[in-house]
């Protein structure tokens, strides 16, 4: 995935970049003699940099010409500001002043009346934005005053969808969308209006966007740093500040303190700089997805050496510990999903005698005798890993790749087939198909003489199209399965399906709520809704956030206005 803010460096580019920095800097402040001399020498030798230097200076003059364009403030600006300061003064006063007079009486009559009006206005227009998005939508306010859901609205009332809009300058504006109602496509006149809550804005220049994942409690992000200030190949955790007014929030109500700021204004922006990032791994690059456990206490991912010398291993990070622990050493283990408090992962074995093995059946990363990478066919196997105990349970059946089990432990989706590699390091799906199967876990049953953990062996194909990459996730009920597939390995956009499973028979229902909808790889499924981002079009059409909501077997949809660089965060 190529992001607009991603930068690649090499030595030559580095010197030009330095020249660019200095050309820009000397328009702001004087350079020291050494930098000035270096820049002069470089500009003498580099035509392109000289042109850029001249262009910077010319653009600067152009910008400075805007100074002469008169911008006059309105004449009543001070009068309005003074009134707003009066409000602020009243709010700032302690509730029990030294003269013990109630606050309201202390205000001028006219101001108190205006405050009462403002209280009403702000209560319906501004206050929703002051509620921070808490875990699972706590702190959210209801549907705004413009909402007039018709009789056909489908109430979904689901958890907020965390997403971000990524700026070209590396800024990430996190926001939460809470969808309470959707309308069936046949009744577009029904107008539900989801509420949105602004979260933090973070400067994440140089992060690998596909790895940015928000924790279940919305209090931290994990991501891989790809470039920037010496942070290449680091897996970092960044605390996320919750949006809070800088002063103690007040509860509006009869007789309460009036809002201090006029309509259209906001409380002071949260200023607190979050505590520093935590580096949990370095020298590696994430392979696949990063995922928090449901309780937010653990983090799992697979990562390979940054230099590409070997394949990935499984990493587990426990909140509060200093670094992630690598729990496999075969360089061919891929994190798949969480199953309760355990991790499902897959590894690759290459049949003995096939190219690319190390003689023990494990895939080898070493090149062949002639130094050339060797094509190989791999067989998949999967296991459950308990991070708390370190216990590992192999799934009995072979050829199970990247299994995802539903939260109620009844169904599993996985790739049933082989894998192939052209270099013995990176692997792609080979022959096989993406299937849904029953899930058996009799290990906990005391009566089981031969414990079985794994698919039941009644696999049904989920999609019939060609699959090179996929992501599968169930809803909390375990009967709706969202599957994103791509016919091109490494692609960020593909097709999203939602299938409904008959819990009695385990069969996929014929009517699919979503069948091959264009979508970016990141999607979010939770109780009563599936959210995804549509890819931007070839004609410059921007992405939009799409939500399919349901109540039982009734489905409806809503989508956002187009916006650039949207990304779902969990």
């Amino acid at each position: 995935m190529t992001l607009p803010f991603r930068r690649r460096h090499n030595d030559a580019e580095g010197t030009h970049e330095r020249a660019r920095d200095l050309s820009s800097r000397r328009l702001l402040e004087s350079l020291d003699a050494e930098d000035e001399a270096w820049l002069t020498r470089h500009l003498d030798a580099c035509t392109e940099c000289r042109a850029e230097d001249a262009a910077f200076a010319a653009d600067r003059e152009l910008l400075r010409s805007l100074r002469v364009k008169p911008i006059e403030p309105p004449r009543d600006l001070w009068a309005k500001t003074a009134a707003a300061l009066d409000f602020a003064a009243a709010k700032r006063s302690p509730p029990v002043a030294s003269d013990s007079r109630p606050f309201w009486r202390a205000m001028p009559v006219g101001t108190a009346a205006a405050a009462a009006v403002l209280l009403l206005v702000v209560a319906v227009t501004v206050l929703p934005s002051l509620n921070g998005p808490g875990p699972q939508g706590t702190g959210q306010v209801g549907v705004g005053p413009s909402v007039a859901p018709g009789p056909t609205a489908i109430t979904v009332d689901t958890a907020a969808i965390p997403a971000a809009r990524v700026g070209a300058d590396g800024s990430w504006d996190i926001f939460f969308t809470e969808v309470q109602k959707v309308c069936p496509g046949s009744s577009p006149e029904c107008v539900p209006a989801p509420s949105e809550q602004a979260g933090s804005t973070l400067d994440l220049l140089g992060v690998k966007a596909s790895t940015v994942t928000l924790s279940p409690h919305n209090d931290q992000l994990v991501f891989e740093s790809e470039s920037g200030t010496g942070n290449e190949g680091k897996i970092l955790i960044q605390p996320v500040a919750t949006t809070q007014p800088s002063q103690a929030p007040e509860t509006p109500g009869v007789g309460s303190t009036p809002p201090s700021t006029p309509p259209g204004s906001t409380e002071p922006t949260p200023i607190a700089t979050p505590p520093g990032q935590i580096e949990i791994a370095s020298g590696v690059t994430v392979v696949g997805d990063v995922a928090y456990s449901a309780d937010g206490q653990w983090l799992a991912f697979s990562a390979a050496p940054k230099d590409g010398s070997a394949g990935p291993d499984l990493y587990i990070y426990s909140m509060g510990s200093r670094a992630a622990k690598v729990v496999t050493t075969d360089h061919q283990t891929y994190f798949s999903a969480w199953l309760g408090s355990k991790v499902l992962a897959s590894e690759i074995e290459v049949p003995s005698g096939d190219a690319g093995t190390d003689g023990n059946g494990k895939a080898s990363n070493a090149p062949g005798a002639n130094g050339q990478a060797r094509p190989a066919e791999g067989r998949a196997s999967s296991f459950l890993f308990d991070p708390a105990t370190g216990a590992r349970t192999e799934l009995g059946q072979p050829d199970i790749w990247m299994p995802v089990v539903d939260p109620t432990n009844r169904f599993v989706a996985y790739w049933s087939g082989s894998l192939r590699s052209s270099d013995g390091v990176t692997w792609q799906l080979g022959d096989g198909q993406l299937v849904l199967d029953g899930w058996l876990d009799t290990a906990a049953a005391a009566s089981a003489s031969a414990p079985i953990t794994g698919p039941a062996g009644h696999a049904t194909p989920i999609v019939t199209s060609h699959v090179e990459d996929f992501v599968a996730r169930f809803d909390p009920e375990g009967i709706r399965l969202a599957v994103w597939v791509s016919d091109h390995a490494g692609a960020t956009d593909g097709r999203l399906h939602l299938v409904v499973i008959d819990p009695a028979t385990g069969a996929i229902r014929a009517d699919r709520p979503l069948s091959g909808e264009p979508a970016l790889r990141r999607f979010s499924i939770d109780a009563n809704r599936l959210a995804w981002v549509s890819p931007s079009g070839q004609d410059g059409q921007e992405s939009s956030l799409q939500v399919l909501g349901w109540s039982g077997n009734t489905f409806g949809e809503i989508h956002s206005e187009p916006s650039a660089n949207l990304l779902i965060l969990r």
Partner: protein
Amino acid sequence: MLERTATAPAAWAVNRQPGAASLIGRAVNRAWDQDEARVFVEGLFAKHHHEIFAYLVRMLRDGELAADLTQDAFVKAYKNYDTLEKDENARAWLYQIAHRVALDELRRRKIVRMIPWTGEARGAAPSAERLAMDLRLSGPLERALAQIPERQRAALILAEIHDLTGLELAAAMGVSHVAARAILTRARESLRRALAAEKEFERAAEAERDATFAREARGGR
């Protein structure tokens, strides 16, 4: 007009958190006094409201909204005046407040607005707000400025039109001095590209007008 503030307050570097040059939210070193705060802010208003309003107009391109937000910025200054360590930092401190007010507003606009699905193809045409905004921008420079990311736009406006020094720019943007310079460099690159695209667009439009005129002239003969 605007004068560059010569002071480079040493306290900024001392108090700056790693990666951020925040002038707000630091240890309070004076008690908040209502009368003192009022006098202080009235003085600030008299001295700086013109430039703060102009900055917000340039960032938001909406005079009415800029007036509301200017008022908002001064109320915030009033409420937080006890966090200003040195009076000589007041101008940059005020810009920092205005900058955050502007970004908050721009951010609110960016947060996606959900609209019901009508059964038509997913995705839609450019928003009406965007089209209206584009129409209000008169020249290539303003259109180019509007196209670059807002923090970069802010850096250019603050440094080149409002004449903030490097340290003031860092303080106003709430970033380190190094980061402020880097943002400004990226801003100059972005502006250069956007201006080139605008000029090319104008050149093509002019060529099209000429061709149309020529066709009409031929047809009229």
